[in-house]
Structure formats: C-alpha cells, structure tokens
C-alpha cells in the first residue's frame, strides 16, 4: 500500500469508518483525492466503494474519523456551502415525472440561490453552458422520462455541471448504458476535467474503462483500500486476484496505451 502522495488535496478522508446500522461497510479508511485529476474507485460488488463515495459527499456521516473539505470537517460546514464546492450524482437517480431537461439542469443552481434571489442572468448563462457542454441543448425542452438512457445520464451530468462545483463525485455514471453511451459519458467527464479543471471522483464497475479514464485508481476490498495509484502502476494480475478474485492477464492497449485486463477464470483461494 502506497502512502498518500504529497499532491495537493482539497478532499480527504481520515480514518473514516462508515456503517449502515451496526454493520461497518468501510473501516478506518484514509484517502486523499488528488486535485484536478480523475480518481476512479474500483472493487468487487459490496466492497464499500459507493458507501465511500457517499461518505465523501457527506450523504453518510462517518461513525468515526473525519472527511475533510478544504481542511475543515465536511459535516461541520453549512450544507449549502459544501454544495457550492462539491457536487454529487447518485447512481441512476430518478427524475420526478414531467420534469423537462432544462428544469432538471436548472435545479443544479439550487445551492447558489435563496428564496428572495431565485434566478439571475448568471444562472441562465451557466445552465445554457451546462446544456451545451453536455450536448443536451437540443433536448432542453423534452421531458426527462422520454429520453434514452445515455441522454438521461447526460442531462443529470448537466445538472451536476450547472452546480458549478470544483469537485464532482459520480456514482457509477455508466450503469445500464451500452458501450457507446458509456464512452460518451466518460468522454464528457474527461472533458470536464481537462477543460474546466474539475476534480472528479467516480465509482466504476468496468476496470478497463477505469484504466482508460482515471489518473488515479483506488482499489477496494472489504471496506479497505488494497492499492492506489496510476493505472499503469497498480493494475497487475496480482491486483486482479486480490481485488476481484479473478485470474487473468494485463496487456497494454496499443491505441490508448492504457492497461487492459483480460479475465481468464475465477481465482481459487
């Protein structure tokens, strides 16, 4: 296990334990999210990766330890204030029936508004920018229920973009999408990172997509971090065996130069 690198980090977990009821899902976990990078959390089902993301987004309060945002405990900062710095998109969120894409995206402005100052020119411009950046401008007046899976996911990401936060947390943004739509969503996330300098933290199921789009991979098993680092450094056959319980090989994609995992069979302990 590598100790956390001395890169700057606005979002950190320090000895965090996260539980549902009496069951600890994440135990004594410390993590520093590198600023301005795409970090992807991977691991087998039920390893606690989504729970960790919810903890980082202050949707789940730790039973011990602290999540720090800009050096201060995230749970002690006003929730609206946090929402202007850190945006979170849960896994396949449900849109209320009859909401248009533009209305959904406009909701992202919520933390920047209050009851007497609900909407300004700035909000209109930011929402339009978000629609354009996610290629949803032509869908703006359609109902969210009418959209295809990929379009719907783009609309939700547009909402998170309109929230205009430096940090963006996405829980499995590619669930239920076919391969083309998965690439579409991840390219979008990658652009947000590259061109707008957003720090991104994602949970992804697909290890190959994680290798391709992550600067930093965090591999988890049973609520603890097994390895973290650049994909080319940490994704090895040993990691496959440790984290996913799969025997396989790791080769290099000749086009993208990212490591590619070839799963051969289930590992026998």
């Amino acid at each position: 296990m590598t100790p956390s690198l001395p890169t700057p980090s606005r979002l950190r977990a320090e000895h965090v334990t996260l539980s549902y009821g009496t069951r600890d899902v994440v135990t004594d976990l410390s993590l520093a999210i590198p600023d301005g990078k795409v970090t992807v959390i991977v691991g087998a089902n039920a390893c606690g990766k989504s729970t960790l993301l919810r903890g980082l987004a202050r949707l789940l309060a730790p039973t011990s330890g602290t999540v720090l945002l800009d050096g201060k405990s995230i749970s002690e900062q006003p929730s609206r204030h946090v929402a202007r710095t850190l945006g979170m998109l849960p896994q396949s969120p449900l849109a209320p029936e009859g909401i248009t894409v533009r209305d959904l995206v406009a909701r992202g402005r919520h933390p920047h508004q209050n009851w007497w100052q609900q909407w300004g020119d700035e909000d209109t411009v930011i929402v339009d920018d978000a629609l354009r950046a996610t290629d949803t401008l032509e869908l703006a007046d359609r109902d969210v229920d009418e959209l295809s899976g990929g379009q719907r996911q783009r609309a939700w990401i547009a909402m998170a973009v309109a929230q205009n936060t430096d940090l963006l947390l996405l829980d499995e943004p590619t669930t239920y999408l076919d391969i083309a739509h998965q690439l579409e969503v991840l390219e979008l996330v990658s652009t947000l990172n590259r061109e707008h300098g957003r720090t991104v933290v994602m949970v992804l199921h697909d290890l190959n997509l994680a290798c391709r789009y992550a600067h930093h991979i965090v591999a988890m098993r049973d609520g603890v971090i097994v390895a973290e680092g650049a994909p080319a450094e940490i994704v090895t056959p040993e990691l496959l065996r440790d984290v996913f319980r799969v025997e396989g090989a790791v080769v290099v994609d000749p086009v993208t130069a990212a490591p590619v995992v070839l799963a051969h069979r289930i590992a026998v302990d």
Partner: protein
Amino acid sequence: MTAAITPGIRAILPRPRPRRRVVIAVVTTAVLLLLACVIALSLGDRATAPAALWDALQGRGEENTVYAVLEVRLPRVVLALVVGAAFGIAGGLSQSVLRNPLASPDVLGIGAGASTAVVAVIAIGSLGGPVGAVPIPLAALAGGLVAATLIALLARDRSLRGRRILLIGIAMSTALTGVTQYLLTRIDVYDAQRSAVWLTGSLNARGWDDALPVALGLAVLLPLTLVLAHTGRALIFDDDVASGWGVRTGRMRVVLLIISVCLAALATSAAGPVAFVALVSGQVARRVGAVPDIPPLLSGLTGALIVLVADTVARTALPFQLPVGVLTALVGAPYLLYLLQRRRRTNGSTP
C-alpha cells in the same frame, strides 16, 4: 462565467423558462378568482346588478341589498376564500413533500383528526362539562397534529414516502370517523345536528368569527411557505440528490408537513372537512403550472377558486341550499378513484 450582477438587479430579472408558465397560471387563476368573487357576491335570493353591488360594497343603496351583500354574502365569500386557500396549500404541500398525489391531509385522516377533536369538545360541553373550555380552532389544530404524529409513528419510515403511510392514513381516517360517529350518538340532539352539518363541510351560517382563525393562520403560514418554497421544491427529488444541493431533507420535510397539517386543521375548524379540496387543488395546480412540483401559491388560489365556485353553486343552483362538502365530494370522489387506478398502472413517484 458572467459579469457580476448586483443582487438588486438580479432580484427583478425574469425567471427562466421552466417557471414562466407558473407565473401565467397564478395570474390567470387570480383573475378567475376575482371574477368568481363578483359573481358570488351578486348571487343570492335576489341577484344584485353590478352597479348596485358596487354601491352596496361601499355601504350605499337599498338597505336590504346592503345587508345581503355586506352581512350575508361577503363573510361567506371571505370564508370560502380562506378555507379553500388553506386546504389548497395544505394539500399541495403534503403531496409534494410525500411525493404522492394521494397523500393529502383529507385522505391521510388529518381532517378526520381535527373533526374528532372538535366534536369531542362539543360533546364535553353537551355532556355538562365546561362549554367552550377549548376554542374550536385550537381543538382542531391539536386533533390534526395528534393524527399526523400517530401516522408518522405507525409508518416507521423516516422518509414517510412509502405506500404504508397511505394505508395507515386511510385506516386512521376510518377509525376516527367511527369515533366521531359514536360521540354524535352521545350528545344532545341539537348539538349533534349542528355537528352533523359541520361534518359534511358547510359554509352555511358562518361568519367573520369563523374566518378569522384561518385568516390568521394563513397570514403567518403562507409567507413562511413561500420563503421555504424554493428549498421545498427540491424535496420532489431523491434525498441523496436534494442533500447534494445542501438541502436538510429530514428537517425541511417535517417543517413543511407541520405547516400543511396546521392549515388543514384550521380550515377544518372553520368549515368542517370539506371533502377532497386539498386532494384536488394540488393536482390541478401541478397540471396547470406544468411543473413537476406543486407551487403553493397556485394550489392555494386553486383551492380558493374550487371552494368559492362549489359553494356558490351549492347555495344557488337548487331551490334549497346544499352543504359545499356534498358538492366537492361528488366531484372529488371520482377523481380520487381515477388517481388510484392511474397510480396502480404507473406506480411512479410524482407529487
């Protein structure tokens, strides 16, 4: 991304397109409401012409007309407005917060709770206890809040959004109606008769004294609702999404539900449980406004319009006066059935 805009200028800038239709709907409903007020003030045993109505409102003209307009019709119209607005806002709030088109205070038994408490107070007086020991509006408030607390406890669901809450509410409503019926059999005939009329929901023979508590409640709770509306709108989303925007979902839900219960209970204390107004207003407002949430101002105006029109029809269309609750029930019951079967088909989560 843009040049800084001073808060003063930003405040008067137009809202974005998604909400424009709400503004249009509010203005249109307000105009219709004004029209309905004029018609309601004109109609009675003898209809009053517009010119005579205008004079009478200023206390001029024929004495009988002035009496009919100022002493008989005006208090009744005002009562219809405040009761309808209170039911409308209450219904819209609870449907919105619980994300369920059926979850209005009347369906959930809040009205029944308020009714039982009121009849219990009347019964205490009737059976020789201290008459008027508890003012009726306070009894209704207490009854409504107790019923709501019981439902919340029995639902054992922090988000209060499951199907359980509806079943418990309907069961509660039925049980409380039984209690009320029993109380009616125990009290003296005159009080029982008076209570029975009240229980159907009626604006007959009521006046300023009945309207005042509801008006006061609205004066306090409507501004509060409008201040909270911006945040309340976020509650139609999943908790994780709304929390991500910095909304304290649990706390906001409780505050808005308490406002809803108080408004429904106060309206019930003044006019009885006027059936289905709370249920229908919110749904009409949501469709007219073409937004996924229920704007409180719009559902309030819709409620006022429904009660005023229903009461005016109920007192003028037939040779005898009907209680307004009979009319709203005749219209509302089929609508409830429609919602029930539609819900079974879609099973979606809409307010």
